[in-house]
């Protein structure tokens, strides 16, 4: 069954969507969209390093993303530059550094487009195993961290006084983001990963009454986007990664701006 490249693409996409949706909810709640973008842009640096050192790409991408995320958190804490300025500098610097680093790797002719926008139809059985491991670890981590993460998202100081170990939880979140980026890179590419996390979660908000519902619905909308995108890509011969994001965007627009019987108003005062 996994012999078919379309089947492999669907399985890979579904595995990524199931963890990207719930994690995306946290990124939306914690206003980390741009943060996620910055970290995912640095993934290309991990790819270049992986080729240079001849090591496992997923592993190095995860490592580089964790490092960049941790550095970002500490830079943000210094507050000498506004957060968006800092992220604006680092997002594009990381991407450019990655592109330059890839060019430096001798004798390497990589298909850059595949890393930037994803190449889900080229997913191998080995890739599936890697995605399953990375995504599985991320999912378990997310479930373990769920309550403390929610507590520090609502009010970090209050959580700290109540005994939540804030620093380990935040580092855990960084590891989570890095793991998901490494897994999702092949599906939608480093430039579009954040979309696969943010858009399904944002779509889910209107239908959710609890944080858990929003996470689950986010996973559901992510699954729909992957299926819709692969189908669209297959029938209309469009690039698969961007097609998945377009499908997610369509769901967001239709479900948020078209009147929907029974949907709850979400605006606070």
């Amino acid at each position: 069954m996994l012999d078919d490249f379309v089947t492999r693409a669907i399985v890979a996409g579904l595995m990524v969507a199931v963890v990207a949706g719930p994690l995306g909810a946290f990124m939306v709640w914690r206003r980390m969209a741009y943060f996620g973008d910055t970290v995912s842009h640095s993934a290309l640096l991990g790819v270049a390093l992986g080729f240079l050192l001849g090591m496992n790409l997923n592993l190095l991408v995860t490592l580089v993303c964790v490092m960049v995320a941790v550095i970002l958190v500490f830079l943000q804490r210094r507050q000498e530059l506004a957060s968006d300025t800092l992220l604006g500098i680092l997002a594009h610097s990381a991407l450019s550094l990655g592109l330059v680093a890839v060019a430096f790797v001798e004798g390497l002719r990589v298909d850059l487009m595949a890393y930037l926008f994803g190449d889900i139809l080229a997913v191998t059985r080995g890739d599936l195993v890697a995605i399953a491991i990375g995504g599985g670890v991320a999912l378990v981590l997310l479930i373990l961290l769920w309550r403390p993460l929610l507590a520090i998202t609502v009010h970090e100081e209050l959580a700290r006084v109540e005994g939540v170990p804030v620093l380990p939880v935040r580092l855990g979140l960084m590891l989570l983001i890095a793991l998901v980026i490494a897994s999702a890179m092949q599906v939608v590419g480093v430039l579009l990963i954040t979309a696969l996390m943010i858009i399904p979660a944002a779509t889910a908000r209107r239908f959710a009454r609890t944080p858990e519902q929003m996470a689950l619905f986010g996973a559901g909308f992510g699954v729909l986007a992957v299926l819709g995108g692969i189908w669209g890509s297959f029938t209309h011969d469009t690039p698969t990664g961007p097609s998945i994001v377009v499908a997610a965007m369509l769901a967001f627009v239709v479900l948020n701006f078209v009147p929907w019987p029974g949907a709850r108003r979400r605006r606070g005062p």
Partner: protein
Amino acid sequence: MFGATRPARSAHGQDGSALIQAEALGLERGGRTILDRVSLSVSGGQVVVVIGPNGAGKTSLLRILLGLWQPSSGRIIRAPRMRIGYMPQHVQVDPILPLSVRRFLTLRHRASEARLREQMRKVGVPQLLDAPIQTLSGGEMQRVLLARALIGEPDLLVLDEPAQGVDVVGQGEVFDLIDRLRRDTGCGVLMVSHELHLVMAAADVVVCINQHVCCTGRPEEVSRHPEYQRLFPDAGAQGIGIYTHNHDHVHDLAGGAKPVSGVSGKADHAR
């Protein structure tokens, strides 16, 4: 963080030993002295209020006592296994996060349905248990924050400007509530406030700080202290101006200290 079993509350503070004791706390930030040898202590059943002008280091002191910041000098002694209930000054939950009051209350401490209902009844908003937290008014949010601080059965309640963003009548109610809770549960209360008139009425001990401790003692002592009068020159008139509007208020210490003046109405409207 704390174990499941806990000693009877009388083990903490009620016999006069301190729940928390700060000794000569100092804090320097960027070469500036924020706090200079500040000492204070809170025992069970006691309400200690820290007042001071803006920039006096009230919030810094609170953060150090809560363990959020490390002091540059001095030390803090906490009673063993003491539980702190903290009510921050301001909590705003983004509308993008679907969160009911019920979930908010149990983010850290799980609690039975009966206990949740009891806490919400205590703070006077039982009907809001399943409301989305973003729909609460300022005063309702203060009450819910207080309920959350109480869920963990604290030995020490730490309140940062508990009447912030609440209208004048609501302020009186919040302080009444704190006073009642203190008497019901026997917990110690440490609060920071600039609502001098109300604070004076609720406090057992007032600590007036301006980097260092200017004066400390019972409210009526502090209000007569020259250092206090220098820091808050118009505190008396302003305090009474607001206080006269709380006709049903049971505390009369602050009101009794000074005669009602003609500017009271004006002072009230100016706020």
